[in-house]
Every structure is written in C-alpha cells, then in structure tokens.
C-alpha cells in the first residue's frame, strides 16, 4: 500500500487561474481531509469529505471547493487564484469508525505556487 498519494507534486499557476489537486486515500480509508500549509505555518483545515459529501469546513472562502468520488479519492479545486494561495496542500485520509478520533494519514502534499 503506497499510503496516501497526491498529484501533482508541484504546480505553478498565474493569478486568476483555476487549479485542481488530486488525492487518493490509503487503502481501506473512506474519509478525506484537506489542509493548507503556508510557509512557516502549521497546516490549516480546509474541509473534509465523507460519503461523497462535504462534512466539515474550515475558514476558507467559497473559491475553495472539493469533491469525493465513489472510490473515495478526492479533488480540491481553487478558483480565481490569489498570490496568498501559494502553499503546500496536504491531503489526509482516515477510516470513519463512527466513534472517537480516526487517525489521519497524510500524503506528501502538492506545492502550489501562484505568480
């Protein structure tokens, strides 16, 4: 099992463009969370998907949207890119057991640079 995988590894976009990042969860996991990690900061929660629905959302504008597919993989979309969107985007997967905290396994991240 390769664990959580993300693509692409690096991405350079121009202000105003749109970007899609992809995540495949660890085998057996059904929940995907996305985090943004700006340089020198800890990861910040964007949103979480379970059963193909957004279940929780952090303090991010509507320009950030996502999707989860029947195979549990997920996409993060960012519209109208701003310079401040430059960051490492982390995907984390977990298995929803219905109680307690589900350990989250992180992917290697996608480094997005907006110029």
């Amino acid at each position, binding site marked *: 099992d390769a*664990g*959580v995988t993300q693509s692409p590894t690096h991405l350079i976009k121009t202000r105003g463009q749109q970007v899609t990042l992809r995540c495949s969860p660890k085998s057996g996991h059904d*929940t995907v*969370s996305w*985090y943004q990690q700006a340089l*020198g*900061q*800890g*990861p*910040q*929660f964007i949103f*979480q998907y379970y059963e193909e629905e957004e279940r*929780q959302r*952090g303090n991010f504008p509507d320009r950030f949207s996502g999707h989860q597919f029947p195979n549990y993989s997920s996409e993060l979309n960012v519209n109208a890119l701003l310079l401040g969107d430059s960051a490492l985007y*982390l995907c984390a997967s*977990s298995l*929803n057991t219905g109680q307690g*905290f*589900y*350990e*989250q*396994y*992180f*992917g*290697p*991240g996608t480094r997005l640079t907006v110029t």
Partner: protein
Amino acid sequence: AQRVTQPEKLLSVFKGAPVELKCNYSYSGSPELFWYVQYSRQRLQLLLRHISRESIKGFTADLNKGETSFHLKKPFAQEEDSAMYYCALSREGNNRLAFGKGNQVVVIP
C-alpha cells in the same frame, strides 16, 4: 474557536540532553491533543496522542487541563529526533485538526 500555541520556533539541543517542546491550547470543551512529527523528506505522521498515554520513541506528553498544556518531553535526545514537531488539537467528536506553527528540533551530535 480552538487555538494551539507553540512558542519556540527552533530548538537546538545536544545529543543526550533532555528535550521539551511546549504546547498550549485554548478550547473550552474536552479536547483531544496530539503531537505530529515530520522528518526530513518524509510526510507528516502521528507521534502520539494524549488518550493513549503511551511513550513513543522515548517521547511522552501529559495533558494538563488546568494549565491547558500538552508539552512533549524526552529525557535523552538522539540525532534521529531532529525533525519538525507539530502540536494539534481536535474537538470532542470532531475529526478535524487544529495545528500549532510547529517546532524545528535540531539535535547536535
């Protein structure tokens, strides 16, 4: 809203010396606290959580609700402990993590 504070950005210690990383949080409910670690060129991974009350790689952390702290400690630092450490909090019944800014630990041989 919950907040996690890690005051020191960089901590340099000699091999064999004790290590203590401070973490304070603000949350009025019953939080779950975690320490995550990221070694060079590796992904973020869970080191330990307060509920399990176990020692991982010689590290321990005790949740002090009175002081709202969850400091990470190791009595004798090893070179392989050099890494980035993040304290994180999850609200009860909630599976989203709020992270601190992290501590860079450098163990000097």
